[in-house]
């Protein structure tokens, strides 16, 4: 063997072209005790990128609360894992695929789904649910429509085909996302707790087996400057060969899921890791680093889709649908047999060593060349951490002073209401949301509610099907974000977002047990953006501590900029709730004739005339008046915690006929959504003005209660009032459900049918047949 040749041209220009600063390059030289060669430089460049290393955000993320009784695995692994009792566990993870989706919306979104699934089955969990919080530019912009249609088709195309139901999400349109959509995807999986595996390589002499697709020149992106750094005569031709777009193959992923879960069930692997950003470099260095070992990797043994690939291309390719399994030599034959049956390619590409070094070899032959030789942990653990400057944006005071209370009252609240309704069903009808027979509350509810089961894990065909005594019956999932609120005050806005997400869980009867987040922000080199990020993390921290919800994972997406402007700060949270005993379907977010409509809200908040609502950062002020300003109403987290418990109990007891939280659009929109969902109108009074009608404020829930004497209506109400009183909450009687019109005395009177039509036609008109074309 020869040793790595020092880099003849590894000068200042090359490392900068690879995206490394001069200081970072110097740090690499000092870690190695010599100059890195081209391949080594490329490996550090991808591993120390913002995307892989979180170098701008790591110093802040440490402030999030990550501990909890039920936390089996917290942040840092491929996914967080929660103990669901009885030997069952739930894995949860969220990620962004924003930038790829801006270039090729279908494949960007599709590969986002593929990537998040691998994070889940890497843990030994069977993926059972996907959620897709999405944000696009305005619907009247052709390019935004092209992006939205492509992204939704990509999620549908990949998720349906791979066979994991998509059970919820969000869809938001706002000018700040015009060139930079936010495509976040969450995945939840189920596993027997004893199948949990971590992404660590152990056991000197063990083998690293690469599973799945052959490696091509996909997604090499920034590192491709190496092609023009002297390796090739014709840089343009080289570049054309290396399109920065990965294509997803859900069929490959489906077989990969089945093969990997079978390998894990049979205990044939000691560690497993998906290949995501930074491809093989990341998977080999992370597994070695976590296991405290070294690894030798043979480039010649990596199955390649294209001819003539350079080592740096093989090591940094982001080809999709690949996994790295660490197996003992004794299990190799059985591993190959399982993979063969599922038609999954498998090749030994690495060997675990005791050196702590990641060595890239041309082959495993005795006379092979050593192409790179670096301490494995330095790629992973020695990545730089930046304390980037923070500055509170100067514009915030002005925003706070712009009081929306001064806005003119609408002539016709009914017309405004109709203009705010958007039914996301056009999106989720394109997603299989029922596979595995778990979906009790499908998209359209406040949160998705799924039976806690999966094929092979308490699944119908599982021999141990009757096992897992004492496990929760069901899980609830909700994803939430609100950039309008966070733009005014990232800390308070994030608190409100966490509070709303937990309340969505309560509306289907669940108690929150864990949270994951996707922090979508602008350019971290702007001190204002770093300040927003830091504030949002503090807000999330405060809310999670107060509500007792540990953060078990997250993802940071920076450099989200559209048309020269940073996006509004958009922290998105995914919350997981448990339902111990599920005896019946929870009430829908709908009215049914004959019900009494009440609102439960903090007693202090409703003391004012606006029933706890404020137009600051509200949907109405923005969409109807183009106004974004004011001071957000604070969340009383103690009271909110009591509200969560009370709502979950009510739902569990099967008392309400309908439940829906009051969120964007205030009481007016919540009532209209319930009316449309239940095809039943209402007669409501006591709402003073448009501020009370469209104002937004935390900790409020609409509940439809049985009203008739025969159903014990009076008693139900009296019990509710007593319980609310004790919790610092109040019950406001708003009116009754029935008829075919939505009537709010003195403010509006529209037909349920008209509201339904207004709400379903928005997306259908813009994105339906013909509409989605750019």
């Amino acid at each position, binding site marked *: 063997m020869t040793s790595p040749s020092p880099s003849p041209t590894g000068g200042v220009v090359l490392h900068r072209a690879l995206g490394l600063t001069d200081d970072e390059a110097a740090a690499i030289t000092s870690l190695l005790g010599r100059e890195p060669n081209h391949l080594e430089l490329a490996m550090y460049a991808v591993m120390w990128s913002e995307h892989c290393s979180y170098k701008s955000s790591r110093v802040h993320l440490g402030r999030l609360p990550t501990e909890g009784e039920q936390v089996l695995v917290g942040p840092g692994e491929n996914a967080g894992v929660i103990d669901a009792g009885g030997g069952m566990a739930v894995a949860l993870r969220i990620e962004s695929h924003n930038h790829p989706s801006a270039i090729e919306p279908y494949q960007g979104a599709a590969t986002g789904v593929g990537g998040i699934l691998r994070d889940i089955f890497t843990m030994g969990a069977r993926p059972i649910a996907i959620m897709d919080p999405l944000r696009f530019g305005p619907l009247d912009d052709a390019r935004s429509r092209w992006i939205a249609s492509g992204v939704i088709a990509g999620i549908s195309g990949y998720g*349906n085909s791979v066979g994991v139901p998509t059970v919820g999400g969000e869809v938001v349109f706002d000018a700040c996302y015009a060139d930079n959509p936010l495509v976040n995807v969450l995945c939840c999986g189920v596993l027997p707790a004893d199948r949990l595996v971590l992404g660590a390589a152990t056991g000197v002499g063990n083998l690293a087996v690469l599973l799945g697709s052959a490696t091509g020149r996909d997604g090499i992106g920034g590192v491709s400057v190496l092609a023009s750094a002297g390796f090739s005569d014709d840089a343009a031709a080289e570049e054309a060969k290396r399109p920065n777009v990965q294509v997803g193959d859900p069929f490959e992923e489906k077989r990969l899921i089945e093969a990997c879960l079978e390998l894990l069930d049979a205990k044939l692997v000691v560690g497993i890791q998906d290949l995501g950003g930074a491809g093989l470099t990341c998977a080999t260095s992370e597994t070695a680093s976590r296991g405290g070992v070294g690894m030798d990797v043979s480039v010649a043994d990596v199955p390649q889709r294209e001819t003539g690939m350079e080592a740096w291309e093989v090591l940094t390719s982001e080809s999709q649908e690949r996994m790295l399994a660490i197996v003992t030599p004794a299990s190799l034959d059985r591993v190959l047999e399982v993979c063969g049956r599922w038609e999954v390619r498998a090749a030994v590409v690495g060997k675990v060593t005791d050196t702590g070094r990641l060595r890239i070899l041309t082959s495993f032959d005795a006379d092979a060349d050593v192409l790179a030789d670096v301490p494995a942990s330095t790629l992973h653990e020695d990545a730089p951490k930046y304390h980037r400057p923070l500055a509170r944006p100067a514009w915030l005071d002005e925003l706070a002073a712009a009081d929306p209370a001064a806005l003119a009252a609408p002539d016709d609240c009914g017309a405004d209401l109709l203009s705010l309704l958007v039914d996301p069903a056009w999106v989720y*009808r394109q997603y299989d949301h029922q596979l595995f027979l778990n979906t009790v509350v499908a998209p359209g509810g406040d949160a998705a509610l799924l039976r806690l089961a999966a094929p092979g894990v308490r699944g119908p065909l599982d021999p141990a099907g009757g096992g897992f005594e004492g496990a929760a019956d069901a899980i609830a999932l909700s994803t939430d974000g609100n950039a309008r609120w966070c733009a005014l005050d990232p800390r308070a806005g994030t608190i409100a977002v966490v509070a709303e997400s937990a309340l969505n869980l309560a509306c289907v009867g669940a108690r929150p047990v864990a949270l994951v987040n996707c922090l979508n922000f602008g350019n971290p080199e702007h001190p204002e953006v770093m300040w927003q990020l830091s504030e949002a993390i503090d807000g999330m921290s405060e809310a999670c501590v107060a509500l007792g919800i540990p953060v078990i994972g997250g993802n940071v997406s920076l450099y989200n900029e559209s048309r020269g402007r940073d996006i509004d700060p958009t922290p998105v949270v995914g919350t997981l709730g448990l339902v111990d005993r599920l005896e019946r379907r929870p009430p829908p977010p709908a009215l049914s004739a004959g019900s009494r409509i009440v609102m439960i809200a903090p007693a202090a908040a409703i003391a004012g005339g606006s029933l706890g609502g404020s137009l600051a950062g509200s949907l109405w002020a923005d969409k109807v008046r183009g106004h974004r300003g004011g001071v957000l109403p604070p969340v009383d987290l103690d009271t909110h915690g009591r509200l969560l418990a009370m709502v979950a109990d009510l739902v569990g007891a099967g008392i309400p006929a309908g439940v829906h939280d009051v969120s964007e659009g205030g009481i007016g929109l919540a009532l209209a959504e319930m009316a449309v969902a239940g095809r039943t109108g209402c007669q409501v009074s006591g709402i003073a003005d448009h501020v009370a009608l469209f104002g937004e404020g935390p900790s409020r829930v609409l509940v439809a209660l049985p009203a008739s004497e025969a159903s014990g209506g009076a008693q139900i109400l009296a019990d509710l009032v007593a319980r609310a009183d004790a919790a610092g909450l109040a019950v406001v009687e708003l009116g009754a459900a029935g008829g075919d019109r939505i009537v709010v005395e003195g403010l509006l009177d529209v037909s349920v049918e008209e509201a339904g039509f207004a709400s379903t036609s928005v997306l259908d008109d813009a994105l339906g047949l013909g509409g989605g074309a750019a």
Partner: protein
Amino acid sequence: MTARVGVVLFPGTNCEHDVAAAVDALGGSASLVWHGASSLGDVDAVVLPGGFAHGDYLRPGAIARFSPVMEAVSSFAAAGGPVVGICNGFQVLAEAHLLPGALQKNAGLSFVCDTVDLVVASSASVLTAGVPVGTALRIPINHFEGNYTCDPATLEQLRAEDRIVLRYRRNPNGSVDDIAGIANQAGNVVGLMPHPERACDPLLGSDDGRVLLGALLASAGARVGA
């Protein structure tokens, strides 16, 4: 006697566990049959479940129909055995020429997952034996290529021979004559786009699918007795 139902698993199939669970819950006994198998084993009925066999690449069912197991399915069908293709399974049966016609992309050009209203149009099939014509059912659909297409002569024949098994009340995909499911001449091979296994538990919203799967188990059971 317990009806034994073989549920065929192609690479990319994803509803096999759901169908098996529904069959078991209705008192049948389900077993999975790998697509590479040359025999079905001892079964009284066969279900080709939904999913994306071979990723639906080329056309849904186009690759799957060449699987070794399909010869066994054909022989079983020729011998009068009950064979039901649900969704992707229907597409496989059409590609394999066990049922006439083809399933094209939905007229709306997008995937549709929804619960729809169906009407039983014929009782002369293993899936609807004993179910009165006109019975209304609410059952989920979940497909991109469910737009049933055939030439006018075939349609005439299907009608004349009472082989249109299920119709949509409101056509979700452009299918000719609102067809949701058809049978072969003998009534023992049925293909349908809706997923009855997804409608077998009130907790999930509907249990109307039991009517169809129950009829299938009864048809299979009758063969056990025979």
